[in-house]
């Protein structure tokens, strides 16, 4: 169980990125976070990942407060961030150095097969397409079998077609070990298709507006009536949460929304 209690973050320059965020995520749950730009979604993930320290409140995993990066918590960034000097296999095995070589190679091979790139172990990151690179990044985070995986808009740089493909991949990978997934996304449909709950955030300071429970069976059709209804609801919340100045161009008008 991942729990956040009254978590706040003020950056050294005075920007109040988060204030009073309280949230509990159950083991194996898929939680999506949506919200306008600058409402603290990335900050929230970075705090949980231990890349940044909270200025207020408490973040705990199974009751134990987090201090710095935790071995059971992994993160996938918006860009793949593969290490260019390691092959694909080297990148996937980056967090597995504690294993013996045969064990490590077995895990890497399994991971490569799982992401549909079985013959790509010897390639350099520069030889991958954007979607392939993001899949490798996903595999790198997943081979260490984290109990919590944080994803910061992992598919946002990809076109809609590949994005749907990767969403399917993510669900399949998730069903292997059922880690907790916290997925930040700009794509409301993505949130609704994947998540058990959707957290809607608003900016200045970043906080939670509402948490919606998505009680639909998987796999979910993107065009289902329930889903479309929920989408309208989320859009409404987001529109409401926007600062007055930005309301003129409705959220729905921006392409990725």
């Amino acid at each position, binding site marked *: 169980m991942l729990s956040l209690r009254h978590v706040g973050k003020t950056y050294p320059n005075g920007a109040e990125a988060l204030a009073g965020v309280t949230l509990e995520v159950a083991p194996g749950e898929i939680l999506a976070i949506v919200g306008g730009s600058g409402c603290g979604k990335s900050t929230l993930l970075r705090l949980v990942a231990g*890349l940044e320290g909270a200025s207020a409140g408490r973040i705990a995993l199974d009751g134990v407060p987090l201090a710095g990066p935790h071995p059971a918590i992994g*993160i996938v960034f918006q860009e793949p961030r593969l*290490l260019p000097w*390691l092959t694909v296999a*080297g990148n996937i095995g980056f967090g597995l150095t504690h294993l013996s070589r045969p064990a490590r190679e077995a895990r890497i091979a399994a991971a490569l097969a799982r992401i549909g790139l079985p013959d790509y172990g010897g390639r350099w990151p*520069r030889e*991958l397409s954007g979607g392939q690179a993001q899949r490798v990044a996903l595999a790198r985070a997943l081979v*260490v079998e984290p109990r919590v995986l944080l994803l910061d808009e992992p598919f946002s740089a990809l076109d809609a077609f590949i994005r749907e493909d990767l969403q399917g991949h993510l669900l399949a990978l998730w069903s292997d070990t059922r880690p907790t997934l916290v997925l930040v996304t700009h794509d409301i449909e993505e949130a609704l298709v994947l998540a058990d709950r959707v957290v809607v955030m608003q900016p200045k300071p970043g906080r939670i507006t509402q948490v919606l429970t998505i009680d639909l069976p998987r796999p979910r059709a993107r065009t289902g009536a329930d889903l479309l209804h929920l989408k309208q609801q989320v859009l409404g919340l987001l529109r409401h949460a926007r600062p007055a100045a930005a309301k003129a161009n409705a959220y729905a008008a921006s392409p990725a929304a």
Partner: protein
Amino acid sequence: MSHVEGLPLTRGVPQRADTRLRIRRQGRWLLGLLVPAGAALAWELAVRAGLANGRLMPPPSVLGATLLDLAQGGDLALHIRATLARMAAGFALGVLAGTALGVLTGTFAGVRAALDPTLQALRAIPSIAWVPLFILWFGIFEASKIMLIAVGVAFPVYLGTLGAIRTVDRRIVEVGRSFRLGRLALARRILFPAVLPHYVVALRSGLGLGWMFVVAAEFMGASEGLGYLLVDGQQLGKPAQILAAILVFALLGKLTDTLLVAAAAPFLRWQDVAQDVVPGEPPRRREPC
């Protein structure tokens, strides 16, 4: 280093593309030879035809004869060995000092704040200005020469190392941190490989300056070495000897640089550079992927 993690040596581009590339490279190499060879030939013909006076600027045939002469007496080997020995010692010392200072200032903000201004000020001194002082301090023999070369090499290596460490992509470092690498592991598994391409460039500029300074060092009263051949050639009015020494300098400089690049190449195969870029040149800044 393990198979997976290590900077792997074997793999890659399909064989065919590799071969084609090599042929293209060789072709270009020959092209590069065309200009000096053409110029040499033209000069030779001009002197033979009596269109030019070859006394101050001896034609290639005289140059060749002089080189052969020097080589047969064993003199050339002696001078080359002396120069190479100085160069090796000075380069090693300079690289060591430059790297150590660069790593320290690049890693610790406190050290940087304390040392960098001083080092930048020292760097601004034309290094030849040290010559009289070094002679007083270290005598006119090897020590002062080696020190001068080391000073010349150390600054570009220092600057390159510091710059490379400071510009390592924060986002890549975060990957290491998210995998809970400690300070040392982070340095070894993230910082070192990230810095390596820039470091090789720094070594190359250090080497270039080292060759400059070895000449300066040998001007200050050496009894052997290629620089001595230059001085000797001037004093005794032997332009062919001067040109021969210059030619050997050019060859040695190019050779050592090529060796350096070749030694680094296996570790830099991952680089994503445009095909035309000289190997070892800094990689284009590129989004890490």
